[in-house]
């Protein structure tokens, strides 16, 4: 009997803990901003990564194209994922969606420029990434 009572107490304790964890989790999520903010921050990171890739490709001799291409592939995967997440949001994304599409195009151009070692195109990509990052920062209060 004592054992069973203890088991019940333990179950209740576990349930209480889970509840507490969930509550703190959701309250925390609320305080760190909306899903829209999170997506904006991730997109911002990917755009800045593209800028660093362009920087590395502008070195003399440049960082190897293989490595930079792998990094840009990751960036593209992230951005594509973001676009899907955005489509699931009730408001649909709007301006952010346009910026992410812009970022995807930028990643494509940068990749081409890295492979061709086209320094002018790389400088242009770098400049564009900067502008895009600023535009994304305007989208969210957290950045």
């Amino acid at each position, binding site marked *: 009997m004592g054992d069973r009572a203890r088991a019940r107490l333990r179950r209740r304790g576990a349930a209480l803990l889970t509840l507490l964890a969930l509550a*703190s989790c959701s309250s*925390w999520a609320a305080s760190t901003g909306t899903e829209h903010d999170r997506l904006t921050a991730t997109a911002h990171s990917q755009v*800045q*990564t593209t800028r*660093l890739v362009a920087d*590395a490709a502008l070195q003399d001799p440049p960082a*190897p194209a*293989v*490595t930079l291409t792998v*990094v840009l592939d990751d960036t593209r995967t992230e951005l594509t994922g973001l676009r899907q997440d955005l489509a699931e949001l009730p408001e649909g994304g709007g301006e952010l969606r346009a910026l992410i599409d812009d970022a995807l195009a930028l990643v494509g151009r940068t990749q081409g420029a890295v492979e061709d070692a086209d320094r002018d195109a790389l400088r242009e990509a770098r400049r564009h990434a900067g502008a895009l990052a600023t535009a994304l920062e305007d989208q969210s209060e957290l950045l």
Partner: protein
Amino acid sequence: MKRLLALTMGILTAIGGFVDIGDIVTNATTGARYGLGLAWVVVVGVICICAYAEMSGRIVAVAGRPVYDVIRERLGPRAALLNLIASFLVTLLTMAAQIGGVAIAIQLASGIPHVVWVAPVAVGLWLVIWRVGFEKIEQVLGLAGLTIAVFAVAIWWLDPDWTALADQATSVMPPAGEPVPTYFYYAVTLFAAAMTPYSVFFFSSGGIEERWSAKDLGTQRANVLIGFPLGGLLSLGIAGAAAATMLPLGMDVDSLGQVVLPVGIAFGLAGIIVVLFGFFAVMVGAAFEAAMSCGYMVSQYFGWPWGKRVAPGRAPRFHAVVAVSILLALLIVQTGVDPVMVTEISLISAAVALPLTYLPVLIVANDKEYLGEHVNGRLSNAVGLAAMVVVLVAAVAAIPLMITTGMGA
């Protein structure tokens, strides 16, 4: 002269051996986010690991017993078995993360997706363990791992805002506007990366493999007390390089490819070659240590013959455990799960499991029956106890912090 050479060799090996994928990922992430704002955690972590590595080295050199051997005597078979299972799982995850990291390093050098490289890396790891001598593996990989220093050199080249870096390095609180739980979540992962529990199993069993005795105490102490802090500096170099390039851009790090960019910006082609070589070396080294640790802890719990100083045919169960562990780690990474994610999970589980490893070490280091005149002095006990408090706090805080911050998002 020969002794001096051995000493230098040991220290250099300890420096290179300190860094693994956990240190790389956490230092780059926190560097990009807080600059050197979490440098104090690395300092605390290094002090703690030094204290406990020195103790377990002393237990090995004087009593001739590796850590796990003693854990069962002290905790009894049942508690020690639970400890074994927890430590084994954490070490297995750590090994999986390293193997995944090696595969990614090869991907960054070749452009071929990392899932292709996982099986070859695991098989290669097993072959090295099977064929190559213990000290040779340790020395070659440890020395090669020193190339990670390229991050620290890159900081110079990138010429960041030095006063800002200095300000960050001297602060121990989250910067204004940053959520406090996230800051401490990263603090816990960074601490766990510096403390990696398998390193104590490996270090103490390695002492037996290399036949330490009481007269090697000085050498062993020098290795730890000089090598580990310098290793900590190498990993801080990664944080510094990330701080110099990524912090001003306000970006987050979520892949190993991003981590190498600062070096690419500083040194171009040569930088990337050196850094990928360094990644390869330190992660293969860490995978080797973790795989051996899996074999060590199981064999030492059950009292089986173990280690590389006996022929594999005379320690078949040890080699079976090592091979099966590598296979399990291979299966984990082969699912295609992101190695950086595996790293973060392994670090959080390591943080939870840390007291399981370190408490028995502290107890035995105070046991006259094992250590005679070499039991802990006041200083060792003071540092050891303070470290134990930090370890316990990190262990208790790890899971709640992970949940509330959504893994530091």
